[in-house]
């Protein structure tokens, strides 16, 4: 490639990266501006006098720390739950003999074909009938099992050396002991993929927490952020952007540092061989 084409090539890559990053850069830059600066025309690309006032303001407008905690707790519980239930069921499907194994696995796969939005009404009524609206159990319970997670881990477990498994059992190792001390430590990449995937989807949920939370104290961060527009008119977007930046911190860390694992999870069904 000649020098000019190499330059054009990099220019194209930089331009595309800039467009894809623009909402994030805008949010970062805008959160450091004053309301006046952000709504002036033409809007400067970078803040002339970076200030953290917007972050203080957004903490005052909504119970942001509490909402952060809610989101973190809910996402952590869902992630732990999915890792536990999926590890157990994937172990059974990969290693154990049982009647109707294929039919049962088909049941797990079938759960992936039922869109959550199609069963959200009965789930809401269930929570309402049992007095669980506006509680943590309502936010967590429906998502503790995962057909996708079972599928992902089973694929990984099937690649585990069968001899090692049989040797361990012959030596008197119990199923749970084998699972916990041998299989889990050796399956860290697959567990990381499932864990990151589960955490991201739980942290980013919108429809369900919108339905089952009624007070600001029980809201998750995503609901709190989206309600900021009602709290303050769009004349002060700097403080909405400050809230958005705070909500993005955990997921940005996961995306930038855990990308390898995420790709493994994303493509479990896509790329074979």
């Amino acid at each position, binding site marked *: 490639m000649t020098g000019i084409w190499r330059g054009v090539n990099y220019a194209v890559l930089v331009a595309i990266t800039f467009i894809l990053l623009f909402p994030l850069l*805008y949010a970062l830059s805008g959160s450091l501006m004053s309301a006046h600066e952000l709504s002036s025309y033409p809007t400067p690309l970078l803040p002339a006098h970076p200030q953290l006032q917007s972050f203080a303001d957004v903490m005052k407008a909504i119970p942001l720390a509490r909402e952060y905690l809610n989101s973190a707790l809910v996402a952590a519980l869902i992630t732990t739950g999915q890792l536990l239930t999926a590890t157990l069921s994937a172990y059974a499907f990969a290693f154990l003999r*049982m009647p109707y194994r294929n039919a049962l696995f088909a049941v797990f796969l079938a759960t992936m074909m039922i869109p959550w939005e199609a069963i959200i009404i009965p789930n809401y009524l269930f929570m309402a009938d049992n007095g669980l609206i506006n509680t943590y159990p309502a936010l967590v319970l429906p998502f503790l099992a995962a057909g996708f997670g079972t599928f992902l881990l089973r694929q990984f477990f099937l690649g585990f050396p069968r001899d090692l498994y049989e040797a361990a059992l012959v030596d008197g190792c119990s199923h749970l002991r084998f699972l916990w001390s041998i299989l889990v430590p050796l399956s860290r990449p697959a567990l990381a993929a499932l864990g990151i995937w589960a955490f991201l989807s739980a942290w980013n949920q919108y429809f369900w927490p919108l339905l089952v939370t009624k007070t600001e104290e029980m809201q998750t961060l995503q609901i709190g952020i989206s309600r900021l*527009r009602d709290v303050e008119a769009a004349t002060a977007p700097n403080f909405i952007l400050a809230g958005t930046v705070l909500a993005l911190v955990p997921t940005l860390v996961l995306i930038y540092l855990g990308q390898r694992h995420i790709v493994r999870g994303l493509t479990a069904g896509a790329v074979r061989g």
Partner: protein
Amino acid sequence: MAFAFLVPSLLLFAFFTFWPLLRSVYLSFHGSDIIGRPTLFVGTRQYEQLLSSPTFRDVLVNTALFTALTVIPSLAIGLLIAILLQQRIAGIGLFRTLMATPFAFSVATASVVFAIFFNPGVGVFNGFLYFFHLPPVGWLTDPSKALASVALASVWLQLGYNVLVLSAGLQAIPDEVYEAARLDGARAPAMTWHITLPLLTPTLFFLLVVTTIISLQSFGQIHILTRGGPAGATTTLVYSIYVNAFAFGNSNFGYASAQALVLFAIVLAVTAIQFGVLERRVFYR
């Protein structure tokens, strides 16, 4: 013994997936009483109402349009970017990492930022038009533009995921294939067309199905950006379910459940097509 390992998952699925699905069917044959409890048996009336309702026909059209406007651009642009990212040049790893950024955004955070972009007065998009002396656009307020605007935000949100998946698909194509073509004198564009794309079809097809299903399920961007308006222009199937069941104290759970089952049927059909084609692919190999 083996069943014990499955019990936690099976119980959860029974409670929160399969029983609700059955209850959706039950609900779709019932109407709400005066205090909003779905107790009155009405037979197939909800479905008859759906079929004869011009509003519901518009909802289906909106859903189809929104899906097409989201899926096709996010696949096409995603593919172009993923091909560019295949180059073996210095710094490509950094570009690849950064281009996954939209994937870190949730529907809520992306919609909140795009709501500011779409703002008619201070928004970036109209600022851009103003710079080129073009008339401003009512991105979210003009009924003929709103659906495309919501789709634009969704395409951006979807691109991070699509680029990641397509890049992984491209990397799975063995080097020897390209090497052999190069020895036979093939040039880069020909290789993209005759080698990369055919070998990428399984990934493209998987992504087509997944993004279609994701688009069909979209809710947050519509709820945050337009509330289904203006004049119902952005009311899709899932948003319509929300409005009938939960908004304005409607509590019309029966009618909303009938729509939920329509959604289920559509998603099932899309998934069935995937399995049908995958089966054929396995057969050919």
